[in-house]
């Protein structure tokens, strides 16, 4: 459904993102994982033409066969909210505090669909129910500040799926929310995706969250794809050293029987920190922070292919045998 080929996003002299190939099959949930400076948000925004004004984007992003890059603003506006839904990080800021909920949700519908007022109203009510918000009729007339963070995010999800998009791009949708609320939102997203056959591009720095929602994970470092593959493969048998260290750095809550022995235990750190835009090393961008770097790493690593579409770019990957890609 969505095919990214040779995408390059640059601001000034720096190439912030370079993705050789990334696919999102119809209805599939793919996670884009990275820390700050990884270019994950830039990539997501470039898909819908919302990259910063001074960013230069080249390459190809095809959505259902037609090219998205290079389209005019009016054409992109038709896609956004229509075929591609978008939810962003801070729900409180994405909602207009002066506009009632009902009106905000109906906006996308009124722009993209040709429905009578009554039909729009019915659709809004149905959407609010689908995102499991209680008492939709009452909710229509409320203002954002009267809702909790979780409810606000559900409203935003409702707006995003209002026109039955085939793809939903979600950028850190649960970062600002409490952990119990987060669970609800994540489950809702999975449910909506399954029910509607809607694909999700889930952008986040949290591997645990992405693991829960997505069937495939793409890991970005310094604007480059370092590892892509089915979730289980990337998480359980990660190959790229960055993915490996990312997993080790924040393992989350241990199993009950292991809790006691982890008390007071130090975290596994990744040496150093993400360099500034112009300070990445040549060759493999992670090599200055990698414990396994060798001389070979001063050259960009080739794409290695593992099983089931699991690919990564590392000269000294973790365990297992690798098959270098032809060419």
């Amino acid at each position, binding site marked *: 459904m969505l095919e990214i080929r040779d995408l390059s996003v640059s601001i000034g002299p720096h190439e912030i993102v370079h993705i050789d190939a990334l696919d999102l099959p119809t209805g599939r949930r793919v996670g884009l994982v990275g*820390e*700050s400076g990884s270019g994950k948000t830039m990539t997501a925004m470039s898909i819908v033409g919302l990259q910063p004004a001074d960013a230069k984007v080249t390459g190809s992003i095809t959505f259902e066969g037609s090219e998205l890059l290079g389209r005019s603003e009016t054409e992109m506006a038709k896609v956004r909210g229509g075929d591609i839904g978008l939810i962003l990080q801070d729900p409180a800021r994405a909602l207009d505090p002066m506009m009632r909920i009902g009106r905000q949700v109906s906006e996308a519908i009124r722009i993209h669909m040709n429905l009578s007022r009554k039909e729009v109203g019915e659709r809004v009510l149905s959407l609010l129910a689908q995102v499991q918000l209680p008492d939709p009729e009452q909710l229509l007339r409320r203002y954002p500040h009267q809702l909790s*963070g979780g409810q606000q995010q559900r409203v935003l999800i409702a707006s995003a799926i209002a026109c039955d998009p085939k793809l939903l791009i979600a950028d850190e949708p649960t970062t600002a929310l*409490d*952990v*119990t*609320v*987060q*669970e609800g939102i*994540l489950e809702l997203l999975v449910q909506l995706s399954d029910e509607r056959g809607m694909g999700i591009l889930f952008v986040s*720095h*949290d*591997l*645990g*969250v992405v*693991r*829960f929602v997505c069937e495939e994970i793409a890991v970005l470092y310094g604007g480059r794809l370092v590892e892509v593959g089915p*979730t*289980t493969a990337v*998480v*359980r048998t990660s190959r790229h050293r960055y993915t490996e*260290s*990312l*997993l080790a*750095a*924040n*393992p*989350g*809550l*241990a*199993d*009950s*029987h*292991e*809790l*006691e022995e*982890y*008390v*007071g*235990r*130090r*975290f*596994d*750190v*990744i040496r150093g*920190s*993400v360099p500034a835009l112009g300070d990445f090393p040549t060759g493999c961008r992670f090599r200055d922070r990698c414990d396994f770097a060798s001389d070979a790493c001063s050259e960009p690593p080739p794409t290695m292919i593992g099983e089931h579409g699991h690919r990564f770019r590392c000269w000294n990957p973790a365990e297992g045998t690798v098959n270098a890609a032809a060419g």
Partner: protein
Amino acid sequence: MPPLVEVSGLHFRYGKARVREHDDAWTLRDLTLNIEDGSTLGVVGESGSGKSTLVRVLCGLLHHQHGEVRFDGRDIREWLSESQADLRRRNQIVFQSPRRSLDPRMSIRRALGQPVRSLERRVPSDTELTEWLERVGLDSEILQRYPHQLSGGQLQRVGIARAISVRPSVLYADEPVSALDVSVQAQVLNLLMDVRSQFGLTLVMVSHDLGVVSRLCEEVIVMKDGLIVEAGRTSEILANPQTAYTEALVTAARTVSLAAPDR
């Protein structure tokens, strides 16, 4: 030895006290807890549970309306009226957002020296400043810089260095790593652990991340709506939550934990 911090029947609310006080107007209600010297305590709960407020009351930054708070055997109100500087010196805080906890118009040199200037009434020497920075793994070269020139991780380290410069007894950390990248979080958390054992600090950490709390804190209190719903040894509470609320927190944390089984 009596606990370092003793709290009983603590009530706190923001704003003016009104004649008729409804229950839910209180941010903290009837809290009772003890913190032993040298212990590590985690404070968990959702937003609005009052955990940040609790920390500020224990530090003496907010004045509670009812109940008793004792620090090192003395009532905190006594500390505040008679020896406020000593109280401040012995209780320091590390804040959540590294960028907001440093005045953008102050150089690192000046910012780092503030607690000593204020509480010890002297200007710290460059040797001292360098030493403090080394403790947190930073180079003295950053002394002349301004906050906007440093990364979040570096700023948070400066915040920690600043807090421990006056050798406090208790270090309160309010979500110290939530605003940082994952790879930097691990570094700062390790730093907190090191600093704590090196200086024998009592560490009280507020966090929404149960995974982090389970590693750093031997004891934990779970807060909801201004009340403490559970308290005890972290590993026990998280393994066997006694209340539905705690259980919900644990379940939600496990859902997104990497240690959980595959779907």
